[in-house]
């Protein structure tokens, strides 16, 4: 029986608590009275995942069983989430592989020849052949790659098609092959409450023309939070687009959720509450921390990125995207939601080594910002864990390092745009068009493994709500110059950071620490 999440109040009995800080971690003693938000313990995974997939395909919600939707001579497109989820990547076999294999078994039995598999990577970088193989499995890869297993190309004008406009005038433009298929089967992994459902096809297969309607400063500032779809302007836009797609396309959605088994056994202490650490956990902590601290940076990064999560699958649901997503959301929240009694003056987050956009890559400063002020800040329902005008303290070294292949436009954004302004609205107004249409960035996006030129701006918008809400942002252990460039401050220790924060929030501030990962979503009352 998994224990529910809870809020710890730090007292004199509380040992030092774990804090992620990029490709490392530490134990930190928090001030007495600080509140620490722990997620529910990992839920038990399904015992018979393949059986559950079969059951879901045969008993879908709001749709006929998949086998009845398949017929010889049809055009079938299977779309799957790209490598941006789950995080860290799942231990193989990936759940997408297991689902796709069963879908293909049914399609083969019905004599469907025209099958195309597309990674729904939108403006993300293309997945490499090795990454595709890891996601869909050897058998699928061997049968379809390279001609019928590919990445979505949001800049391939010939292979995009406009479905129409929503009543708000939003253009819905998606992958032509998918749009012209008799059936789209979307295979999803929902790691957070923001993913899946109406977002899948309308974002994963979209173009810049379509994405700009919801990936903008105004929408993100009115998404409170973007992990709470009913209160997220971004999701309202997805819903409108999804409605239009639903009127024109036949989509069979298969959604899966994972539990909180984020770290493998040898890092088991990262999944446990600190006062419950056994001697073995403590020895593992010391051994791993020392080895990690002493390892050469490159080697350290390689090791972290080779870490695969032993996630258990907590649900598999198939059918109509809206009906399916309701079930998925319940399962995500069941695993992540913890009730918190009100916001605090100061919020603390330990940022890990990985975010959706640096899988097998480098977490550059813009991504640190988007992970901290975007993803982690928005892991809330009702209100943020910090009050308006409060201070956010993040743990991350924020090194000035970029992956030149994956993030070329990020380098220019950091060097040129942020040197001029950090205001999201000014950036959007002055630079978005330029970055989105730059032919060199488009070339690298299409032919190399680069994120789209506009992607760093989107990451900046991702933090727009937090920037507006917070009075100050401090990075403990952060590189001073890099954080300053982004308009933030750095501190060497938590004590220093708290002293700096007190200048803004007063002498005896209240503190909320979101203990993640494993992912925790705060339901702040």
């Amino acid at each position, binding site marked *: *029986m998994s224990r529910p999440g809870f809020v710890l109040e730090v007292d004199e009995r509380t040992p030092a608590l774990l804090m992620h800080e990029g490709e490392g971690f*530490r134990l930190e003693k928090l001030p007495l009275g600080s509140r620490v938000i722990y997620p529910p313990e990992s839920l038990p995974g399904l015992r018979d995942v393949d059986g559950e997939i079969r059951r879901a395909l045969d008993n879908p919600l709001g749709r006929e069983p998949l086998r009845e939707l398949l017929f010889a001579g049809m055009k079938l497109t299977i779309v799957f989430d790209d490598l941006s989820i789950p995080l860290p990547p799942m231990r193989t076999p990936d759940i997408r592989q297991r689902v796709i294999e069963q879908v293909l078994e049914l399609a083969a039995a019905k004599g469907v020849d025209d099958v195309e598999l597309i990674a729904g990577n939108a403006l993300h970088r293309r997945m490499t052949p090795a990454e595709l193989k890891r996601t869909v499995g050897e058998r699928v890869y061997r049968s379809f790659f390279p001609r019928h297993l590919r990445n979505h190309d949001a800049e391939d004008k010939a292979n995009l098609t406009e479905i129409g406009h929503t009543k708000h005038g939003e253009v819905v433009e998606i992958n032509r092959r998918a749009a012209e298929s008799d059936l789209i089967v979307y295979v999803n992994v929902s790691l957070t409450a923001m993913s899946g459902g109406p977002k899948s096809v309308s974002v994963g297969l979209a173009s810049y023309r379509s994405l700009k309607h919801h990936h903008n400063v105004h929408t993100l500032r009115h998404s409170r939070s973007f992990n709470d779809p009913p209160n997220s302007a971004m999701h309202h836009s997805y819903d409108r687009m999804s409605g239009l797609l639903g009127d024109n396309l036949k989509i069979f959605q298969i959604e899966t959720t994972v539990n909180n088994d984020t770290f493998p056994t040898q890092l088991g202490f990262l999944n446990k509450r600190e006062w419950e650490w056994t001697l073995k956990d403590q020895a593992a902590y010391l051994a791993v921390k020392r080895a990690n601290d002493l390892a050469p940076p490159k080697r350290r990064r390689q090791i972290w990125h080779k870490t695969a999560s032993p996630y258990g699958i907590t649900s598999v649901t198939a059918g109509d995207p809206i009906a399916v997503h309701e079930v998925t959301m319940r399962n995500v929240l069941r695993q992540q939601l913890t009730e918190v009694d009100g916001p605090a003056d100061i919020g603390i987050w330990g940022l890990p080594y990985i975010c959706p956009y640096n899988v097998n890559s480098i977490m550059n400063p813009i991504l640190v910002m988007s992970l901290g002020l975007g993803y982690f800040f928005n892991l809330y329902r009702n209100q943020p864990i910090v009050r308006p005008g409060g201070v956010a303290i993040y743990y991350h070294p924020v090194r000035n390092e970029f992956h030149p292949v994956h993030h070329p436009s990020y380098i220019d954004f950091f060097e040129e745009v942020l040197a001029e302004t950090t205001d999201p609205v000014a950036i959007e107004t002055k630079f978005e068009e330029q970055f989105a249409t730059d032919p060199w960035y488009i070339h690298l996006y299409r032919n190399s493994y680069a994120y789209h030129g506009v992607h760093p701006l989107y990451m900046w918008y991702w933090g727009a709500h937090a920037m507006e809400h917070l009075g100050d942002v401090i990075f403990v252990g952060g590189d001073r110059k890099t954080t300053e460039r982004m308009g933030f401050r750095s501190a060497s220790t938590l004590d220093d950071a708290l002293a700096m924060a007190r200048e803004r929030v007063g002498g005896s501030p209240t503190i909320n620490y979101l203990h993640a990962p494993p992912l925790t979503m705060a339901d702040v009352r």
Partner: protein
Amino acid sequence: MGLMKDIRVLTGGRDWRGRSRTPRSAVAHEPPEPPREFPTGWARTPAAQKARRALQRGVLTPLTWTQTRPEIQGRDRLAGLKGPVVFVANHSSHLDTPLILGSLPRHLGERVAVGAAADYFFDARVRAVVTALIFNAFPVERHRSRRLRSLAPLLLARGWSLLLFPEGTRSEDGWMSPLRLGAAHLCVTQGVPMVPIGLRGTYAAMPRGRNWPVPGRARVVVRYGTPLRPQAGEGARAFNARMADSIAQLWAEEEMGWYGSLRAQAKGELALPTGQQLPAGSWRRTWESTRPLGASAPKPAWDD
């Protein structure tokens, strides 16, 4: 230096075993105890038996007999009885076990194992070792958990008699609670006789919460009943009812005398002394149960 600092931060607030106290706000969220079986086999080795005999005869029994004024009755009913048997008694004090162990006839008393609450006596290593050594105790799960496989049948099969307290715990107020079926079930399934024991005055002598008997050598009575044997086809419930009747009679013997209690039982006037006649929660329950026993047992009926 880094390692030393890491160790310092890690061990801060933890004891020498690396254990941290649970923060107060996390107490309600502690995980359920993992299954843990304390081994007690060593306590039944010849060396441990010798040590136990020495401790019981040299320390425990003399101490109990000097701090209280025990009166042992009905031991003659055990003459000729061969083990293994199951002794069952009402339970209201930590005095109960030493009194029974110290008063059993030697031919039975040397091979007795005592069922002790796993969650109380076996939750801490030191307490578990002491309990197992002095009383030859073995853990009994009393909360219907299936964590532990019961040792009782195994011990009976190996010739050990058992002392069990079928109420499951010491009485809160000196009155009895309903008897659980475990002991009766054990006798019925293993085909062993049961010896009922009625203890009186032990609650008054050393109630819950005291770790030493009250001053003044209170009178306590250990009264052995006639052994009961499961009849062919008799179920655990029926046997349990007979057991309850016997204990009720042994209890009543203190006030009514042996013959008087037999007559009362024949008239159906006896029931398990649960103190039903006194309102639940009333001070009078404790008042009555702590009333010191009379200076001696009632006179025999034929003296009237």
